């Protein structure tokens, strides 16, 4: 009932134009046709997608699962654009979080933080940032951690900060650099950490960050 009340004028018109009537065919879930959604996604008309309301999310998740790699990347981009929390979206996106396909991997990594605030999302992105064999994937995982964890609460950010601070001690200099960048975007500061400084100098700064994290936790 609530879902039906939320149907906006534009959404209603869209359904009428497409000749759909709620419940008239089994493949039309909640009055939203997956082919119509597919067309909207393919056209990149994300505002139109938004006008369909959150009921579109399970339809998109099913579309994602039934699509080829290229289309999955477009659906992932659409999830990113909507920025709505969705367990279904997270479930399907997580299946491709290690895919070797560059186009899909980047879209999935960027989208995950915008559909979920679950701990395992941050965990898998931290893991990709540090341990993926492809430097591009490591870098873009850091980007996602820096800018796309939009649903995290202050408590949930502890795991994010903790992982980024831990990565400041990584043996790979590019990992230290991107971890620092992500931490800087999240907090606005570096505390003087230089990823190319000597191990001893880096250790001093990492300890400063760990003290900061303890203070952060004590204020929650």
């Amino acid at each position: 009932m609530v879902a039906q009340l939320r149907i906006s004028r534009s959404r209603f018109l869209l359904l009428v134009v497409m000749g759909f009537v709620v419940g008239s065919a089994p493949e039309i879930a909640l009055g939203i046709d997956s082919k119509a959604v597919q067309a909207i996604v393919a056209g990149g008309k994300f505002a139109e997608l938004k006008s369909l309301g959150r009921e579109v999310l399970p339809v998109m998740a099913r579309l994602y699962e039934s699509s080829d790699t290229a289309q999955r990347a477009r659906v992932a981009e659409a999830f990113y654009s909507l920025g709505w929390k969705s367990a279904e979206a997270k479930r399907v996106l997580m299946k491709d979080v290690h895919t070797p396909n560059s186009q899909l991997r980047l879209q999935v990594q960027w989208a995950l933080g915008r559909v979920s605030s679950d701990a395992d999302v941050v965990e898998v992105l931290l893991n990709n940032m540090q341990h993926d064999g492809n430097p591009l994937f490591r870098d873009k995982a850091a980007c996602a951690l820096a800018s796309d964890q939009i649903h995290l609460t202050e408590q949930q950010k502890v795991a994010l900060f903790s992982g980024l601070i831990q990565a400041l001690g990584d043996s790979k200099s590019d990992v230290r650099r991107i971890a620092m960048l992500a931490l800087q975007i999240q907090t606005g500061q570096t505390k003087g950490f230089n990823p190319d400084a000597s191990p001893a100098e880096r250790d001093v700064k990492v300890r400063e960050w760990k003290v900061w994290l303890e203070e952060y936790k004590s204020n929650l």
Partner: protein
Amino acid sequence: MEGMARRIQIQSIALFCVLTAAASGQTGTSNVLVSYGFDDAQLATGPDTFAVFARSRGTVRLNAGNRLSGYRSVEIRDVAADGDFPELQGYFAPRSRGKLFLHFAFMTATPFEEFNIALAGPQWFSLRKDGIGFWLKTREGHLCQVSDSMPKKLLLLEPFVWYVVNSSYDIDQGSYDLIIHKEGIEKPVVSLARQANASNQPGSAVDKFSFIGDTNEHKSNVAYYVDDVIVGIDESIVHLPFVAPGRKKLFIDYWSEAQRARRSRPEPIDPVGLSDFGIRQKEMEALKAAALWELLLRFINGQAISSEVPQEASIETRQLLQAVALWGEGTKALRDQKPEQALKRFDEAAALVPSAKIYSMNAVLSLAALQQWDLVDERLSRIYEDWHDDLRFPPAMATIGLARQRLDEVEQRLRGPAEQVPDEIGQDLLRRLHGGAMTPELLQELKRRFPDNWGDYLRDVFVAEQYFLVLLWKGQAADAERFAQRMTDRYEALGIPSARWHERMGDAAFVLGNFSMALEKYEKGLGHEPNPGLLVKLSDVYFRLGDMENERLYREKIYGTIGPE
């Protein structure tokens, strides 16, 4: 604060004036960069002053009910799940070194709903150098500061209590001192020194401030109030007092300032809220949906003419806008001493939107300017119920009284014997009339029962009230008090409720500085169903007597209170 940054990048700044854009002062020649009391002078929004964003269902508007000083504050009201947030954003000349002093007051009705207050620089509202410098936010009922990139709890917020924030912000050091006072408590509830700024960045420039609801999740249903925003480079700003008498303006201050501002010639009264125009939430949403919000504000500010009302708008919306346009024309006409023209405009506006109370009152003032006293009294009786508790009513009545002249005739009548009305029905009607229960229905009954002299009865009531107010107006408070005493005696002799005259005796005592007497009289005036105006006066008199507990008790009777969630 991601949302703020996003909004600004879009640069679709919906500038509009909050109602009459009445924010007092701003950049001056002194050490004050910004000063908004939201009370007196008119000030248009703009890139050098402030902007208001209220694009979705949230609102930013002037509020006469909750204010720390003066007559108005700004209310910021967010609506959850509407995909946006309301914002009051102010600008000042960029500062990249030295110290800045910040002073403002806030009060929330909903401590468990999120709101954010920030000072930021050219990098807008992000945590970075030249981004957010100073940031207060709420979390689970607590006020927090964001310092060194982390939120830190400061205090548990109480609903409907004013907090005054003073901060000296050291741009070079990237730190600030913070002192927060809570209403009714002399010592500060927060006193912190050398706090790292929001992202712990020395030399982080600032040039703007912002008051919003929540940022990303759009979960907030906050309603909070902001008053007395001052930003400057003079340290005296952070030493502004809080509850000291003279800081808080009382009902009598409105009276005194109106008295100074007005002459005996009737002039239109100013609006203090959109409801004066019959515009409430539903109408606001309709105007926004029709993209006519800015046109409305232009009408209010006299920057548009009635022919600009688009024909394609709905009938209701057209009527609302046309009425505001007519009101603007009427206001100008009355100020230009063209009362006939003004009356026509106000009447046309009232016919279009009968629920807008300001049109009818300004029509009465136009009639007073035309000396059409029978019509003044009849119309006043029709709107009395809507107006008698309004702060603007006594000055309006005094203005009418001054224009009417020969008010002292009422004294002559008091010297004669108490009038006897022959039958019970007539007596009951007159009791209700004199008791202040004036409604259009009562007027009809009066006309039926006293077809020949109903106007005389009406005039007696209004003239007595106007005479009292004119005496006060002229600074003859002792005479006003004695007159109110005689009216009280008369009413009691006739068996008429005299609560309103006890209240007026209290007003005179208040003006004379006899607060104990004012309290006694106000308490006598309370009656079974105390009017909100009297509760304000009781709150004010307790404030003057230094009894903050009772000051709050009566204030909360008007504005309410809520417990923790």
